[in-house]
């Protein structure tokens, strides 16, 4: 996959950057521009428009675009969601779109081969082996197992055999320490005092991203109750919150 062939000629016009998407992608992957400042939906719409206007779809161009967008989305999700393993992001940055394209081809091949594996597993399950071991005439060959075994050893063995299957390891999931009740109280207090606020102000005291998310959910809850009115002048613009609740 050469750079020229993958070059889309597709250009974007965004507040942070105007020019060929290829250049934008490089800037993003080199971390010269923050991925959170790039609305991927807008870029995708632009790409679809560009593709429609062209005479016909270029498979390579589309695949390359998809590979880049997949990386950008994963980066963006990484930025927006709390995550402890910063290393993941570093590794993603190191992935070039061409490599991602190659990997997508590889994955397609692996998906094809899974059908073969599944079929073989199915067919082989019809062969039943004999698991009984030596017949009873050979019982005398079994060792005297208590020769070197203590009560402690036996307990350990029993524990290993009788232990229930391992529970799902959730250590990689960040516990959410912020409650909806706390968020509702904070939003209410602010709005009852000020009657109106921008979302940015409502989360100004938040220390973690997850706290912002919970505040946002609290806001939606208040909206559902009819306690607040929400306004957004433009896509990705500021969200304005007006207090409608009983004073």
């Amino acid at each position, binding site marked *: 996959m050469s750079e020229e062939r993958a070059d889309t000629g597709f250009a974007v016009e965004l507040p942070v950057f105007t020019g060929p998407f290829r250049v934008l992608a490089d800037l993003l992957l080199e971390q010269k521009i923050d991925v959170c400042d790039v609305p991927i939906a807008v870029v995708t719409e632009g790409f679809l428009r560009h593709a429609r206007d062209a005479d016909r779809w270029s498979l390579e161009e589309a695949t390359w675009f998809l590979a880049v967008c997949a990386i950008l989305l994963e980066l963006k999700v990484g930025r927006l969601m709390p995550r402890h393993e910063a290393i993941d992001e570093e590794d993603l940055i190191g992935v070039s779109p061409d490599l991602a394209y190659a990997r997508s081809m590889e994955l397609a091949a692996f998906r094809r081969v899974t059908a073969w594996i599944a079929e073989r597993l199915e067919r082989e399950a019809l062969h039943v082996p004999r698991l009984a071991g*030596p017949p009873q005439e050979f019982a005398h060959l*079994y060792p005297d197992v208590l020769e070197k075994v203590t009560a402690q050893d036996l307990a350990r063995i029993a*524990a290993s055999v009788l232990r229930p299957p391992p529970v799902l390891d959730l250590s990689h999931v960040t516990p959410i320490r912020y409650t909806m009740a706390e968020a509702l109280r904070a939003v209410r207090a602010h709005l009852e005092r000020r009657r109106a606020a921008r979302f940015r102000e409502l989360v100004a005291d938040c220390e973690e991203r997850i706290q912002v998310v919970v505040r946002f959910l609290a806001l939606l809850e208040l909206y559902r109750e009819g306690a607040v009115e929400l306004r957004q002048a433009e896509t990705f613009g500021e969200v304005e919150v007006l207090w409608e609740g009983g004073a």
Partner: protein
Amino acid sequence: MTERGELRRDLEALLFVSDEPVPSAELARSLGVDRRQVDTLCEELARSYEERGAGIVLRNVAGGWRLTTSPEAAPVLERFVLASRHVRLTKAALETLAIVAYKQPVTRHQIASIRGVNSDGVLRALIERGLVTEVGREEGPGRPVLYGTTPEFLERLGLSSLADLLPLAPLLGAAEEGTAADGAD
């Protein structure tokens, strides 16, 4: 293949996966034929093994048909079992003994379910060694035999009663596969 050939094939497969004598009636049910026919087929099969000097023999013992190894192959088998299966046998025996000790009274079937493999041979070996014995029969269909440990088992471990077995609860969380393997060596 003739219908008779198919029956013989299925019969041989049934006997192959069984570790204990299978009553003709049970074979007949599985094959969808009558008992007499099963007995005739088994006799035929037994004769064919004999004629070709096979390493396996088919015998009618203890109320059922059972495949086992030819007595003439015993010397080679013993060498093979002692040389290469010994560690596996030890592990299987220890696991089975641990299950009987902590779960008694327990059926063969329960042991096999816990270990994930047929453990009848191991159980027999433990009985022969005087560590495990029949302690009764379970109520319910088939009234399966229940197994438990013997006084000799306690004595060998230096325990005065089953109540002295180490409690399992603290180990269930902490025990690692590694320690079990160590214990089996």
